[in-house]
């Protein structure tokens, strides 16, 4: 397995998988090549610490990252920050949390949602994510690479043997169900949503921030050519989650 997989425009995918009964869940990080050094997006889970450490070390020629941009402080995203900083020095942490000390990130530089920041000479815009679990989550739009890093939405449970595939290259059989399954198990609040309202918000983000690649932490990268297909699957999945909940509620009543 190579250390990282090139996504183009200076972005590489370092993927790890967690095995679930029905398939694999990605718990990935991304590496962004910036003029001032390499930037990690998220730190991954301590569950994959040794493998991630080795692959990041290899991908950065032993230097490690010079900065890390965090989607949110949930442990599978932030859990390796202390260890990686011990190993590679106190590199900069950029995070959208409003109260860094409460989230265990007292050293973080705050990225305010809605603003853009320069990190090591590359510009990122921090977006309010319609699909997330924690309130301080941000999606991260790489202005130069037009890559949108997303957590926790846009995941897919994928079959073993396809861990390094782009979303568009996953087997069609089960792919739609993988999108549904991920969102059903991860974002339980979707049972309450108005699908039209949610999908409008999502499509609005892509209209304002055109993405050549959508780079989920919990799923394979989605190329621009496949984005509409993914959104169709997502909308179908959300509608299924809502209707299933409605049916269960009616039955209980």
């Amino acid at each position: 397995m190579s250390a990282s997989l090139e996504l183009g425009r200076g972005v590489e995918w370092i993927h790890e998988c967690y095995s679930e009964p029905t398939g694999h869940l990605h718990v990935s990080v991304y590496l962004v090549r910036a003029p001032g050094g390499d930037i990690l997006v998220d730190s991954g889970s301590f569950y994959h610490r040794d493998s991630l450490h080795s692959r990041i070390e290899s991908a950065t020629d032993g230097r490690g990252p010079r900065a890390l941009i965090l989607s949110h402080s949930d442990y599978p995203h932030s859990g390796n920050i202390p260890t990686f900083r011990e190993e590679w020095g106190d590199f900069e942490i950029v995070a959208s949390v409003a109260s860094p000390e409460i989230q265990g990130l007292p050293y973080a530089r705050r990225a305010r949602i809605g603003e853009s920041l320069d990190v090591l000479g590359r510009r990122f815009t921090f977006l309010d994510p319609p699909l997330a679990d924690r309130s301080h989550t941000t999606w991260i739009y790489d202005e130069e690479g037009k890559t949108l890093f997303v957590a926790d939405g846009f995941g897919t449970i994928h079959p073993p043997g396809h861990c390094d595939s782009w979303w568009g290259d996953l087997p069609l059989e089960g792919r739609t169900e993988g999108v549904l399954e991920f969102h059903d198990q991860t974002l339980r609040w979707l049972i309450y949503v108005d699908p039209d309202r949610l999908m409008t918000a999502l499509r609005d983000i892509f209209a304002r921030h055109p993405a050549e690649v959508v780079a989920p932490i919990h799923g394979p990268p989605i190329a621009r050519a496949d984005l509409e297909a993914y959104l169709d699957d997502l909308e179908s999945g959300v509608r299924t989650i809502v209707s299933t909940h409605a049916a269960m509620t009616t039955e209980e009543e």
Partner: protein
Amino acid sequence: MKTHREIFPGIHWIQECGPNRQGIADAVVATGAEWCPAGVALHVPQNAYLLTGERTLLFDTLSPAAGEIVLAGLESVLGDRPLDFVAISHTDVPHAANVSRILRRYPACQLVAPAAGETHPLYHLADATLVGPGDEIDLGGLRVTFPEATFLDAALHTWMTEETTRSLFTVDWLGFPHMEGECLQCVDELPGEIDVSRLEAFHSRVMFWFQYVDVDTVRRATDALARRYAGYSLLPSHGLPIREDPERYYELMNEVVANVAASGRTGVL
């Protein structure tokens, strides 16, 4: 400063007030909300609840900034007694951050975590005792259950009840900021009432997804909760305990959801 007190026989509240939330205070003042005068310090707390029957259980552990607060609270209340269980509502950092410290201090303590969710090993919870609807822990004099979290953020999540006092621990739901001078007070001890705008100041930031909901669907879920837990006190993780007139708060929350759905979120925490 005192950071814990007993709010029902055998239920001790340990409070981390956290920093002054000036940004939220300024935003609230700008709305003209009467409950928040200009210049006052505003806190969005983290709460842990220590239950002491014949056996003892701590529900949630406060943030990484409050390790000393929770350990001091435990030692003050327990003295030489052991902590038998530490239960986490969910794995969010401000709720679960001090589990390791507590387990080091009380090595015989049993870690209890939500059964809901699929990714326990990603949170060092592979060996925890997992609980969910239908499960009960008899503490001897106190009895806790673990109903599904109706309103939540992360999937790996549980609410808790204590049945002898009829208390519902609502975790992230029903949070609200309090002002300096209101720390460690229950709602029934405040001079005024909690209104919609105070609940909205919290939920429009934390339950950001209210902006995408079908309001009637949420109302049905809230009303079902009100029927199921009629008469239960409401003990949130980010607000002050509600011991009196809990029914009022379900209807207030329906208004909050309608407002956030109409106006969107107001910020982040």
